[in-house]
């Protein structure tokens, strides 16, 4: 039409672009070849700097060229004086800035910048910090920049409080960025460390006489600051309860100190002439310097884990030399030293006793107050209140529910058991993708509760039937249990850890879905195994039972294996000790 501006057609434009691209490629390839040949001849001149700069500005991820550039720069350092070098590096930094504009996430550019900054004779760290701030304001998840920033902060010694203010700013602009929260969690213990004396005696750990190990306290933050942090993080999860960053940080705030490493239990059996030792965490007893002293005499014994599958285990056993303690009229004193940790535990076997043990009563605080809480009860209580408030507004929020469960466990695991179970039920419904995870977690908590009840009752019977258990855990705590009842749960296996029940005599596990008995392994006292209505389908599945010398009674009714031909004779051959077999 008349008067209209004439435009190139798209085909024309494409054609032009194509030609341009070809031209560019030709130049690029030629320059690259020139660079490579120069490097082969180890030429470190200005032209090489020019050529690599040309290539890297269009492709900053060409690592070889950055290396070549560093070679050239290092060569220049040997021939130029400091002022000149300073100039060269300053121009290198501004070149890098242009590269970062092209690709703010180029590994090569950031690495080179770190290298240059470290070699710069007179670095300007303030400038580097402001560069990082600019980059992070454009993309607060640029981890290259975070890394570089950490280096700058370290090299220039930025005060911690300034860095904390920096995280304030970042969290203020976007509280969904976990990098900022995490950084905060590394700064707070430095700036506001927990006072060395616990502020209140009511939550003192049971071993108050022992000096607190460094691990117990180094990551903690003083209470005054913690209260401020609780407020901050609550603002975040009330604003957006579906954002996990804030919840993770919250859990870190509530987190408890690591457990002290120690020998938690020593058990000795006169009859079997064995010693079992339980540790507060899985160890490899063969390499931690475990020393057994019997009546003042160090003994040469061989420690074995309860199951050949474990190189690390919380429970280890050893056989004493035959005859050392078999006389029932003798009294024996036994000490197990954990030389590596400078800790030990004594155990006395009195006259007339067939077995003996020594341990701390497994108080709730020390063992199971979930992952939360070295906090005061009052603090936890008020945190629980705010979470409940949020839950009223957002009844289906999984993060909130899970945190409430953890807080309840930290406060009073038995008292809140009913509510905990109800919340787990809701969790499984609203987050069905993680249904199995919640089932396992719930099983863990139910087992903890049952252990607590058992401890309070001071019995050696562990009964947890009909609780929808899907997994077994804390089995190291059951070292002394003689009778276990797992009936009517949803267990599929008795895992290798089950072999830690070294005193077990009766195993009741009717009405589960057990397919594997792997953990019923070398249990010296086991006499009775009741497995009615499970899913044991082959004779091979029963093989582990053959390692239990005293097994007399076995109930296999309602298992597929009973349909096997010649089952009775096969079993008689496999388990000769069994006298009472129910099929």
């Amino acid at each position: 039409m008349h008067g209209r501006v004439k435009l190139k057609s798209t085909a024309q434009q494409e054609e032009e672009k194509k030609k341009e691209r070809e031209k560019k490629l030709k130049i690029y390839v030629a320059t690259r070849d020139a660079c490579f040949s120069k490097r082969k001849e180890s030429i470190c001149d200005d032209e090489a700097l020019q050529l690599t700069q040309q290539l890297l500005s269009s492709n900053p991820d060409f690592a070889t060229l950055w290396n070549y550039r560093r070679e050239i720069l290092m060569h220049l350092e040997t021939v130029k004086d400091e002022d000149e070098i300073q100039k060269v590096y300053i121009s290198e930094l501004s070149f890098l800035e242009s590269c970062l504009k092209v690709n703010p996430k180029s590994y090569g550019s950031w690495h080179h910048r770190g290298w240059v900054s470290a070699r710069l004779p007179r670095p300007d760290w303030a400038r580097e910090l402001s560069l990082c701030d600019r980059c992070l304001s454009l993309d607060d998840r640029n981890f290259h920049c975070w890394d570089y920033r950490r280096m700058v902060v370290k090299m220039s010694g930025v005060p911690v409080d300034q860095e904390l203010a920096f995280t304030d700013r970042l969290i203020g602009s976007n509280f969904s960025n976990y990098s900022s929260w995490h950084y905060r969690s590394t700064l707070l213990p430095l700036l506001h460390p927990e006072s060395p004396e616990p502020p209140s005696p009511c939550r003192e750990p049971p071993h108050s006489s022992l000096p607190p190990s460094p691990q117990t306290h180094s990551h903690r933050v003083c209470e005054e600051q913690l209260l401020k942090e609780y407020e901050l993080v609550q603002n975040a999860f009330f604003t957006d309860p579906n954002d996990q960053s804030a919840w993770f940080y919250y859990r870190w705030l509530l987190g408890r100190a690591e457990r002290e490493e120690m020998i938690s239990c020593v058990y000795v059996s006169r009859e079997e002439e064995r010693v079992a030792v339980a540790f507060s965490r899985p160890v490899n007893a063969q390499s931690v310097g475990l020393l057994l002293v019997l009546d003042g005499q160090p003994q040469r014994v061989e420690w074995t884990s309860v199951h050949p599958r474990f190189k690390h285990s919380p429970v280890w056993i050893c056989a004493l030399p035959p005859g050392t303690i078999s006389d029932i009229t003798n009294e024996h004193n036994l000490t197990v030293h954990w030389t590596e940790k400078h800790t030990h535990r004594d155990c006395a076997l009195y006259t007339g006793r067939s077995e003996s043990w020594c341990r701390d009563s497994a108080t709730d605080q020390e063992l199971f107050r979930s992952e939360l809480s070295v906090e005061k009860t009052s603090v936890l209580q008020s945190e629980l209140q705010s979470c409940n408030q949020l839950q009223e507004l957002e009844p289906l929020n999984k993060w909130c529910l899970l945190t409430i469960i953890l807080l309840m466990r930290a406060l009073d695991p038995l008292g809140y058991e009913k509510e905990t179970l109800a919340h787990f039920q809701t969790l499984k419904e609203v987050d069905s993708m993680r249904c199995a995870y919640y089932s396992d977690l719930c099983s863990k908590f139910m087992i903890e509760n049952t252990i607590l009840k058992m401890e309070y009752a001071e019995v050696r019977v562990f009964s947890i039937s009909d609780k929808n258990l899907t997994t077994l855990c804390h089995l190291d705590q059951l070292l002394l249990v003689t009778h276990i009842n797992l009936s009517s749960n949803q267990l599929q296996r008795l895992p290798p850890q089950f072999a830690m029940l070294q005193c077990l005599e009766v195993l009741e596990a009717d009405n589960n879905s057990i397919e594997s008995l792997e953990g019923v392994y070398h249990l010296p006292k086991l006499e009775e195994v009741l497995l009615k209505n499970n899913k044991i389908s082959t004779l091979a599945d029963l093989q582990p039972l053959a390692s239990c010398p005293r097994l007399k009674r076995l109930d296999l009714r309602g298992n597929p294996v009973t349909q096997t031909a010649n089952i009775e004779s096969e079993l008689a051959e496999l388990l000769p000790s069994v006298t009472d077999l129910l099929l």
Partner: protein
Amino acid sequence: MFPLQLLYFYVWIMSLGLAESVVAAAFSRVGQRVLHVDRRSYYAANWASFTFNGLLTWIQQHHVKEAQDWSSLLEEGEELIYLSNSKSESDSISNVQVFSVFHPTTQASQTEGEEPEADQPTTSAAQSQSEPIKKKISYPQLLKEGRRFNIDLVSKLMYSRGSLVDLLIKSNVSRYAEFKNVTRILTYRHGKVQQVPCSRADVFASRQLSVVEKRKLMRFLTSCMEETEEQQAYNGRPYLEFLCDQQLGDNLQDFLLHSIAMVTEDTPTEEGLTSTRHFLRCLGRYGNTPFLFPVYGLGEIPQCFCRMCAVFGGIYCLRHSVNCLVMDKETNRCKAVIDSRGQRISCSHFVVEEDKCVSVCLSVCLSCCLFRSLSRAVLITDGSILPSDSDQQVSMVTVPPIAAGCPAVKMVELCSSTMTCMPGTYLVHLTCQSVGSAYEDLSPVVTRMFHTPESHDQENCPSVLWCLYFNMADGSGLEAEGHNLPSNVYMCSGPDGGLGHEHAIKQAESIFQKILPEEDFCPPAPNPEDIIYDGDNTSSSSS
């Protein structure tokens, strides 16, 4: 001057306002010849921005010309319609009042070399003031730094997803301007200025909301984006009632009603929800608030479109009055215009400015909108109404009616980095639908929120150094349809009272589509390298 009567124009446009400029750009862009004129000496008509000195001149403008008889230029079967431009200025702008805190005597002694007449009619209030306030910034300084001001006659903001922003992007006109984010939304409640938390980050950082309020607010904002049956049940009932039933509490209710939906207490629910959604959709596109503001003031925007028009061949004439339209009596079509120099300019289509006189002459019934007007105030202050870490905040402030029967006031506070005022000052615009004169409507708000000669106990508030009140005709009453206009004459209204620019852009688009329904409205302008210039054609294809 080039004899315009020798040229043919497809469309003749009478004023340089926003809608007119968009229309001009749209026609020019698709290759139509555009003649864009204005009797004024500046761009953007009533949408203009002025330097301080320019504004003083604008205030003084009251010249009247006598209408002349142009019947000798008529051909047979034609009649004249006078567009009596002489009075139009006073028609669309009225009740101009200026106040200044500067003491008249110090002023007189210090303004040597400046234009002393500029402030003479304006300082009556200051003269009655007993104790002159010592200010760092003096009146001569204001005059001296006057060019640092870009004071808009209209006060609007650009919604990040509004039709103006969409159009600027689509047409590439955005390349002619720069923009700044409005950085915060404020409101005036219980005698205090408060920040309205509207984005996620704001809600998180807010100190005035409890955590439960935060959750309720966020939940409401998320849930109202979707239409629900619950909402539909409130159709026709006031939005306030809907908000009440959400159990949000007074704080949140006020924020949502006045500052986010920006509606009144009797606005129906569906309308309230629509504007709430629009606000939320605009949020986060460019920053933490839904609004942008053009650097150097809103007057830039019409100029950007004019520039686009000129790039594609449009012709511009400022200070070019047009006296009459030449009508064909039989067809009721307009054939030409006659300008003040007596040139007869022939065109196919005519876009005129909405104006009382024009309307009367064209026997257009605008009774509904004739007397509606906007009350405006412009203040130059020495501090922000809510000081914060940064002194470069751009704030949108909603002021709910301070008493029954009072209008809700929209206020925009601009800092010097928007290039609309000199460093150390803030430029504050107040706008509301007129109930009385601008002074009657807005001075109560100004006295409460600022330290002025009339206010008491406002020592902590920023002081008003200078202020201007005026009324402007409200262009929102004009409906594009249903006028008794000649079939090839189209009317553009002046600025409307809305916060956004939807009205003007919609109007421009509908005029364009009426004339050229087949053509694309403001397609993207091509990149310079893709344009084929004469003679370039062969060389580019052969190479």
